């Protein structure tokens, strides 16, 4: 005789109320957080539909900072959720539609190598054109730009997760006839969750970088500024107001740390259950905030009355819909026709765009071409020298820290905070200092690139050095290898895969950063040096779309070529020959 089913569903939701009373105190922070969020959204909405404000006054008093910080955060959040939506749809279609996959994935690869800031002028123009009479246009432009900065890696992660779901799991889903809905929620999303979360963290961190650039910028004769942390910092730097800069940076670091503690940590700890492993981890990540949420009575109660019935109803709805017989052949034909029409439209659009692009490129003058070529060479050298410089200090320091677990435990959070400050936020500060000591933009741009890229390498080197197995270290001790030998035989090969990962990320970041690093509006002047980034920025300023297009294509081509020719090969080597099997 089977035992009766659990009563969890039978209890009416209000049945738990009496027990909830003493825990009200515990739930207070959650309630307050909810109201604060609501008020903030209201403010943002009221501002968004307000009239155009091209000469917005950015107040430098610290009391204005919470509002600005909130605006910036909201932009990032909106962009992030849009990215997530795009990621799910694009990744899903690419993973399951073989025909679409063939062009969607290369397209993603190209989009990924286009420097994000090159999107800025066309996106802004388009958005302002769409909403000429409200602030919404510039806001949307900013959001779309942030989106282009964070969406690609998330999409790639989701796509490759879907592709790597084990075959037998797919077969189980098929043989047990899971509806697409159930499949999504019980198999695909959980499987992709961890990769998606880590990429989300990276994306949002990257969003701060672009936020600085797009909250305040000049497009031809228009000077657009949106109230936010980025514009606050730039205005403060322009005014040479050190106190305000410090306040702004402080608030930004605080927000980033808070975001990490309140949002990402709990999510990471929660996502632990999605790890696709057959045995339990020895030391799962923990989060006090998550514990708080779990212990609260409001959240489970809310889930019980809202989430669970909804989930049940949706699951049943889709299961029954999937079981219904339907006119398969007709449907197939219809989708096929839709596909054909869509493909045709896409082809026509692509052809038209290609012709227009060709026309624009043909019109380039030889001076402009020379400028692009010269700039490309200069930026290439600058990026590579930066990488070498970054490697020179991060490898010894990283190895030193990585081989000493205590030290790296101490150093890691500090370095993480340092790295979390977006390089673009520091640019004005650095420039201010450089101008004071009389340095030029040539050195300045290198310092800026270094600031933006060294952390990736440092973190990876630390991770690599601490992952070197103890027995190999002991072998070196037993055979009394000298320092040189030890580096040559153990440390360098050991950290190689991590080092390459770091360099790949750093190289991509450096190219992107060159657009802001080589050309800067500062205290009413324009500082620039020779480089492809400067060419792009200058073209943006002067509204020269021809040069912007050519230079952007040039940069994308160089990044893509370097990836293919150098980094991908090194990565292949790293993941075969230098992989430390555990």
């Amino acid at each position, binding site marked *: 005789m*089977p*035992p009766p*089913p*659990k009563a969890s*569903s039978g209890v009416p939701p209000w049945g738990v109320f009496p027990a909830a009373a003493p825990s009200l105190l515990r739930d207070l922070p959650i309630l307050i957080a909810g109201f604060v969020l609501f008020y903030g959204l209201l403010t943002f909405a009221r501002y968004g539909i307000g009239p155009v404000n091209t000469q917005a006054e950015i107040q430098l008093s610290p009391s204005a900072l919470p509002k600005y910080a909130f605006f910036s955060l909201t932009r990032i959040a909106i962009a992030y959720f849009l990215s997530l939506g795009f990621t799910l749809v694009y990744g899903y279609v690419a993973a399951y539609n073989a025909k679409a996959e063939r062009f969607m994935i290369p397209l993603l690869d190209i989009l990924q190598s286009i420097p994000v800031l090159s999107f800025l002028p066309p996106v802004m123009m388009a958005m302002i054109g769409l909403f000429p009479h409200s602030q919404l246009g510039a806001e949307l432009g900013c959001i779309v730009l942030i989106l282009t900065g964070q969406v690609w890696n998330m999409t790639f992660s989701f796509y490759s997760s879907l592709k790597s779901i*084990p075959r*037998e*799991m797919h*077969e*189980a889903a*098929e*043989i*047990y*006839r*899971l*509806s697409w809905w*159930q499949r999504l929620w*019980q*198999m695909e999303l*959980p499987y992709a969750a961890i990769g998606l979360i880590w990429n989300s963290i990276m994306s949002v961190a990257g969003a701060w970088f672009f936020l600085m650039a797009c909250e305040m910028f000049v497009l031809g004769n228009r000077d657009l500024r949106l109230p936010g942390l980025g514009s606050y910092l730039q205005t403060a730097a322009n005014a040479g107001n050190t106190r305000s800069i410090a306040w702004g940076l402080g608030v930004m670091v605080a927000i980033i740390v808070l975001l990490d503690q309140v949002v990402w940590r709990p999510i990471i700890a929660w996502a632990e*259950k*999605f*790890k*696709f*492993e*057959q*045995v*339990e981890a020895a030391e799962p990540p923990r989060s006090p905030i998550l514990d708080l949420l779990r212990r609260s009575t409001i959240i489970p109660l809310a889930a019980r009355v809202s989430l669970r019935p909804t989930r*049940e109803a949706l*699951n*049943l709805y889709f*299961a*029954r819909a*999937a*079981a219904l017989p339907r006119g398969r052949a007709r449907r197939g034909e219809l989708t096929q026709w839709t596909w054909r029409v869509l493909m045709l439209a896409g082809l026509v659009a692509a052809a038209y765009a290609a012709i227009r692009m060709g026309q624009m490129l043909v019109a380039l003058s030889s001076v402009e071409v020379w400028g692009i070529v010269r700039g490309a060479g200069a930026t290439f050298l600058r990026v590579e020298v930066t990488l070498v410089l970054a490697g020179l200090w991060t490898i010894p320091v990283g190895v030193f820290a990585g081989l000493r677990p205590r030290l790296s435990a101490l150093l890691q959070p500090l370095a993480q905070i340092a790295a979390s400050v977006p390089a673009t936020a520091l640019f004005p500060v650095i420039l201010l200092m450089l101008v004071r000591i009389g340095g030029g933009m040539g050195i300045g741009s290198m310092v800026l690139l270094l600031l933006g890229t060294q952390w990736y390498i440092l973190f990876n080197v630390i991770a690599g050095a601490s992952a070197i197995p103890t027995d190999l270290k002991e072998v070196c001790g037993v055979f009394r290898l000298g320092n040189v030998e030890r580096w040559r035989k153990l440390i360098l090969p050991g950290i190689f895969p991590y080092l390459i990962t770091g360099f790949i990320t750093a190289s991509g970041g450096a190219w992107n950063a060159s657009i802001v690093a080589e050309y800067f509006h500062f205290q009413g002047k324009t500082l620039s040096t020779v480089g492809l980034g400067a060419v792009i920025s200058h073209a943006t300023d002067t509204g020269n779309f021809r040069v912007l297009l050519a230079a952007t294509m040039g940069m994308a081509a160089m990044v893509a070529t370097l990836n293919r020719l150098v980094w991908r090969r090194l990565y292949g080597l790293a993941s075969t*020959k230098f992989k430390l099997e555990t």
Partner: protein
Amino acid sequence: MNPPGADKLRDALSQGHWDHAVALLQQFDPAVAADVMMGLPFEEQRVLFRVMPDDFAAALVSHFPYYHSYVLLHTRSIEKLRAIIDKMQPGERLQFFDELPGEAWQRMMDELSGEYSPAAQREEGSEVAGAISRPMPAEEPIAEAVQVEKSFLQPDGRQIQVIAPTDLSLEANTITALLGPSGSGKSTLLRILTGLIQPTKGIVLWHGRPLHECAPKLAIVFQSFALFPWLTVLDNVETPLLARGMEHFERHHRALRALHAVGLQGFESAYPKELSGGMKQRVGIARALALEPEILFMDEPFSALDVLTAENLRGELMELWLGKKIPTRSIFLVTHNIEEAALLADRILVLGRNPARIRADFRIPLKQPRDRNSAEFLVYVDYIYKLMTQPELEPAPLSAPTRAAKAPYPMLPHARPGGIAGMLELLNDRGGKDDLYHIADELLWEVNDLLPILEGATLLAFARTEKGDVEITEKGREFASADIPTRKALFREAALAHAMLLQQIRNSLASKSDGAMPMEFFRDILDEHFSEEETQRQIETALNWGRYGEICSYDSESDKLFLHRLEHSGDSHENLLHQE
């Protein structure tokens, strides 16, 4: 299988006219009669064998497969058994005894010389009553594959056939085991039967209707369990029920019942990663049973588990099945474990490879639970070993002559030289000859591991297999007792003499002045004959052999093969250091 008169025989049987049936049977040539009898249900065979005259029984014994004769003979009393054996032709009797494995042979000898205690023998009289009652008429099969075949398109446009046209039907009240070496297409066949893979040609019927037109009640238990690690045990079991649109209460009820059946009550809220392998597979079985499938498909369900756990789980599965505690009407089990198949299955299909086809289809009429040490059981195990180690034995009638016309490229068995050496040493220690299942038992090897090693040793002419026994050759003896450098030399000699791929590699490398060739060249040659995976495995095996025999070496950075220069290998000490 259907000579004129076979229908009349069936009519006679269906009316219970046993004597008439025997008379009809006697009109056939004994070989044909044996064939016809093999097509009947075992219960009928037994009765026929009982009521037929001794000399006709004796004539038939040599025409049945030896394992079948052995079992039929043991349905009679010892006196009858002696009488029948006595009436056999001397030559045929010799052959029959020759084929029996050690234990069965010993038991027969004891029985004939009168030393065997008849206590274990069942009373012959009691059987008649049971036998006269009609056995159940053969039912319609639940699922049926009609001439299914599967080919894969290679990247260069060639078709590689992985499954030759195959007929297969799954009947009610039967556990059918599909046995075959790894890579023989067992799992593909299972996936075709369940509709996970579309056959290139042919059709799968479910109660006579095409599979895709009906919603068959089936479930699969997977080798890797295929549980969702983020769902609790209960949610995992409920997942397929939810997909059927079942309401909450009903789902719960069924899931708990299934969990109870596999002994997992109390684990409902655990996550799979908190469970041991055996428990995980229990969840997999509960998930399948909760659906109340008509046929339960099991794809190597016990091979990811350790020996004891697997044994335990097999026992529990049989308990559920024999006790009719589950509504499942038929089980289809894919396995490479011979003992497992012989223990569980009512019917065994043996799959041959390249391309897959059913080489043998026979029943095991032994009663459950089976004693793995009984002579009857061992006869079957011995027979299956024989089948699997001798691909040329009993070629299936389905292998069409068109395919036989183009000689297939000889395949290197995926054996490591170390494994071959190990087996030869063992064989040498045991006097040079032994039953295969003894060796497998001794080394705790499954047939999956043993087969390639055996094939390797046979290919190199270090050993030969004969009727389920393996015997070491003179060369093999020399190899087994040599020191390492001599072994390498002997191996090299044998490999170059018998392994075509290594010959080709050596010859092409030797023809180049620098003695180097890109690996791609050999890959291309092999791609003509094998699937991508198999090509990779062929290359890996060839490299293993080539390195051990110091024929060639491989540099992964340049992806090139190099001829191993004999003049360098004079300094054998250095060479040894380079070997694994």
